[in-house]
């Protein structure tokens, strides 16, 4: 289980760097230095003001060692006096986010009920989490045994999902976390804070139902550095426990339901629910168990993955690609890649009879297509540069889906780069799939000559080792009641070598088998042509990767 012990060399390096002999603690000396605290402790005082004043004094004694800190402390005292005058209470001014955390951790259970119907309980000691969603779904997540119970009101069963440990000791998909992290700590602490997604927590004075309260505000930092209020937590200055939370909903939900915030009220009971039935799941339903097993990858698959990864990494990273559909009208895409910077333009080549000004006869040369695009408005433009993703949606004269020119700006750390931004990633889809569960199969009748067939629960990948391990055919599938159903199939053909010797397909064909993806008439087979032209660093058009240029004249939404 203790896999970390296997990496002895790294262990040794870390130990040499931070290791230190166990520090010794002299309690008698400590008592001499902390007589005031001991006095308070012994008198069993409940006068928190006294204890707090001593505590403040102690901190002061610790920090008041340099002139700079003395000056800073004087400023703090002045501010504190102003705050006291403003509120008439020392208690409020002294409540910090850390105090709230301390008070929270000392409780048994936390219960939060929101004004949209959501409700949750969490056992602060054991991490057992009970949840009723606003749509009536019930969850019981037992983090001590890595078991989750799900119940949907439309379902006739309760699903019990158990997670197996990975060989290295990881326990996905839900890692045990302490109640603080689940209920409040996600707000601007830990990794999200380190990633710069949230501002520091701001303290303000406020009232709840006429009583003084300390309010903690946290702002989400958008992709363009803008600040949006994410949550406000109000805490009781006496108990220091949270009493109310006001959270801003995500943009999609705000727009769909016209609601900006939800408000939750906290209480800290001594007991809580014990099972999913206590949340209102019908007791007569059967529990269906599922164990989430962990696949292990074979050495042969590992070899192919490594070869595919190497080929993908070595594929030229400076190019212009044009992808156009082979029929009279369809889409035309122009993509640029300069190492990690990406730019993608999507045009419509419309019916020449109806929209002659938005039409180019196919077949056409790449030079003719490029010349045509200079007079066309792209329906969509995407740029990825320096960790930021920009997606612009133009209002096209003959395409009424986009009512307003809009740009979405995302961080790549929180939003995946859309697949269509980068052409070459598509050549090795198995490498980007859930490749831990890939297996080599030998029986598939559609395996093209010379190819190795890989599969997982979502797809078959037919990999050609002679074409840089590109998946020349990919069949996406799904399982319905144990039956395998094809969703779509992508075939790459007419391979040609770039001047660098790397292969790429000049034809791509996508065939859709099942309309569940579209909920309307199936689109026809979509044969596409691909042309890749290698470029030097100075050959890209000006501002190709300047995402801020896309913001001009558009409504901007940052995430």
């Amino acid at each position, binding site marked *: 289980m203790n896999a970390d012990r296997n990496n002895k060399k790294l262990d040794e390096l870390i130990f040499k760097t931070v290791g230190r002999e166990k520090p010794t603690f002299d309690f008698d000396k400590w008592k001499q230095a902390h007589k005031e605290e001991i006095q308070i402790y012994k008198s069993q005082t409940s006068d928190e003001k006294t204890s707090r004043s001593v505590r403040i004094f102690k901190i002061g004694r610790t920090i008041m060692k340099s002139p700079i800190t003395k000056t800073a402390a004087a400023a703090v005292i002045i501010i504190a006096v102003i705050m006291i005058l403003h509120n008439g209470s020392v208690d409020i001014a002294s409540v910090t986010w850390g105090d709230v955390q301390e008070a929270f951790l000392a409780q048994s259970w936390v219960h939060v009920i929101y004004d949209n119907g959501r409700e949750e309980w969490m056992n*602060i000691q054991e991490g057992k989490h009970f949840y009723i969603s606003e749509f009536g779904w019930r969850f019981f997540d037992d983090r001590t045994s890595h078991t989750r119970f799900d119940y949907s009101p439309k379902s006739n069963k309760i699903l019990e999902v158990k997670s197996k440990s990975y060989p290295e000791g990881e*326990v996905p998909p839900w890692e045990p976390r302490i109640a603080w992290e689940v209920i409040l700590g996600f707000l601007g602490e830990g990794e999200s804070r380190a990633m710069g997604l949230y501002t520091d927590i701001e303290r303000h004075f406020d009232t709840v139902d006429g009583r003084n309260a300390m309010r903690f505000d946290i702002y989400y930092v958008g992709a363009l550095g803008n600040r949006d209020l994410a949550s406000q937590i109000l805490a009781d200055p006496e108990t220091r426990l949270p009493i109310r939370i006001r959270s801003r909903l995500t943009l999609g939900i705000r727009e769909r339901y016209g609601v900006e915030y939800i408000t939750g009220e906290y209480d800290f009971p001594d007991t809580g629910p014990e099972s999913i039935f206590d949340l209102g799941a019908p007791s007569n339903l059967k529990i269906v168990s599922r164990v989430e097993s962990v696949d292990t990858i074979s050495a042969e698959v590992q070899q192919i993955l490594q070869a595919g990864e190497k080929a993908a990494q070595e594929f030229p990273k400076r190019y212009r690609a044009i992808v156009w559909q082979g029929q009279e009208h369809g889409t035309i895409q122009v993509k640029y890649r300069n190492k990690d910077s990406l730019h993608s333009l999507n045009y419509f080549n419309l019916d020449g009879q109806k929209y002659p000004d938005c039409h180019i006869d196919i077949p056409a040369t790449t030079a003719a297509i490029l010349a045509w695009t200079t007079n066309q408005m792209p329906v969509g433009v995407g740029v990825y540069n320096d960790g930021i993703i920009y997606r612009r949606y133009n209002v096209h004269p003959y395409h009424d889906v986009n009512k307003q020119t809009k740009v979405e700006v995302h961080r790549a750390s929180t939003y995946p780069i859309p697949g269509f931004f980068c052409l070459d990633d598509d050549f090795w889809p198995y490498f980007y799939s859930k490749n831990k569960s890939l297996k080599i199969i030998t029986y598939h009748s559609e395996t093209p000559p010379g190819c190795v067939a890989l599969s997982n629960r979502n797809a078959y990948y037919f990999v050609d080792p002679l074409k840089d391990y590109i998946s020349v055919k990919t069949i996406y599938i799904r399982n319905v009641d144990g039956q395998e159903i094809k969703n779509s199939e992508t075939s790459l053909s007419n391979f040609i070598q770039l001047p660098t010797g790397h292969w790429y397909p000049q034809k791509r064909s996508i065939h859709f088998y099942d309309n569940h993806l579209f909920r309307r008439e199936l689109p026809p087979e979509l044969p596409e042509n691909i042309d890749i032209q290698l470029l030097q660093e100075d050959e890209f058009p000006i501002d190709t990767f300047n995402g801020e240029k896309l913001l001009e004249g558009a409504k901007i939404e940052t995430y």
Partner: protein
Amino acid sequence: MPDKSETRLVEAAFNGDIDSFGKLCQRYYGPMVAIAYSVVSDHQLAEDAAQESFARALVSLRKLKNQTRFAPWLAAICRNVAKDMVATKVRQISTKDFSQAARNNTDENAPVIRRAIEQLPVSAKELVVLRYYNGLSYEQISSVLGISQAAINGRLTRAKRKMAKYLKHNGFPENRL
């Protein structure tokens, strides 16, 4: 979960037995120093922070509603004391200190290993320091953080994987990892 002797000590301290509180301090001094060190990056300040945490804990002990959570509660106090020290600029805590510490350390690998630790998320950094600062066992760490040993192992494995990745990316020879 704490053992029975700890539960008894907490209960006794709760009821006014200062020596029991002293025994708890002895037990958790090392872990608290490690926790504070992960924030302040200075051995002396870390010890100051641990001792100040005990003082805060002593005056707030009666607020501890669940006595089985003494160690995680103490750890939360210690983190806050250490953060306060950084916030009040007792001393500029930055990678400069790590560099200084690295200069004091004669091991040639120390600077890059310190940087690899420094780039970890806060909770992972704390865990690595807890494990290696004075060689705490999984059981001890579990008791301090209030999470299972399996979770500790998983988090530690991931933290070390991140460190190894960082080291490789920064040219650290693979055969020395």
